[in-house]
């Protein structure tokens, strides 16, 4: 019981430390560095994805050994989200470039 409690606490501390590191990296790329614009955007985008993965793993306890319906719910929502966001941006930018 005690050991389990300590390992779960370590899990939250790890999650918070990794999140803080990715946050600092993203803010540094825009505010503190003289990276070219595209590079800075890549750093921000990749650290956002990494930080979301970290928080899903360490704060929300989502892993590969999920009960099936829970995992299906999350994956299906992500599919819808990808279709809607990707589709919207694709169609609207194509429209903008043709006007």
């Amino acid at each position: 019981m005690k050991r389990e409690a300590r390992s779960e606490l370590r899990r939250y501390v790890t999650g918070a430390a990794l999140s803080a590191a990715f946050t600092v990296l993203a803010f540094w790329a825009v505010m503190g560095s003289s990276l070219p614009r595209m590079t800075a955007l890549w750093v921000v985008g990749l650290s956002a994805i990494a930080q979301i993965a970290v928080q899903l793993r360490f704060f929300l306890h989502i892993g590969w050994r999920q009960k099936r319906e829970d995992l299906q719910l999350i994956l299906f929502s992500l599919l819808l989200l990808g279709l809607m966001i990707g589709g919207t941006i694709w169609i609207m930018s194509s429209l903008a470039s043709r006007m």
Partner: protein
Amino acid sequence: MSENVHPGINLGASHGEAHHGSERTAFGFWIFLMSDLVIFGILFATYVVMRPNLAGGPGPSELYDLKSIAKQTGLLLASSFTFGLVSLSMKYGSRTGAVAFWLVITAALGTGFLYLEIKDFARMAGDGGIPQRSGFLSSLWALVGLHGLHLVAGLAWIGVMLALITARGLSDAVKSRLLLLGLYWHFLDLIWIGIFSVVFLGGMA
């Protein structure tokens, strides 16, 4: 490790009925969270499409204050961590005082976030950045404002939970609701990662 019955921290077998009782409510709550995620996703897409449409009004470089956004990010991340401590002290300690203490700390950090955010919005409005000024500003206020409203709702929920803990102690129902509140709070932090990356850092890079 005991068997997990839902995503998110589980109470574990030592909590008996409350552990398995939270399986269905947690699944239902995940359905709510995922539909909420879809709403935010659409607002993100709208923002990205509207981003160039300034209509001659002020743009990101005049309106955004990255230092304030960095402070808000720190506060929200810290509050997500302290909510982890709420869940852990409920799961292992079951002492009402510790749970309430970390809830109060989480609420204080959340209030600090909200204070800075409202100050930012007031300053933006003072600089002519009101929602009806341009397509960019409408989508900005809708997206960031909706996240702020979620936070207000979260703070109200924390208040209700504190009252329930005081009145009833850590009953099975209270434990199960605290689990859901934890999912909600971590979820808001996830949305904020998207907001500060896409809206604020993306807009200033």
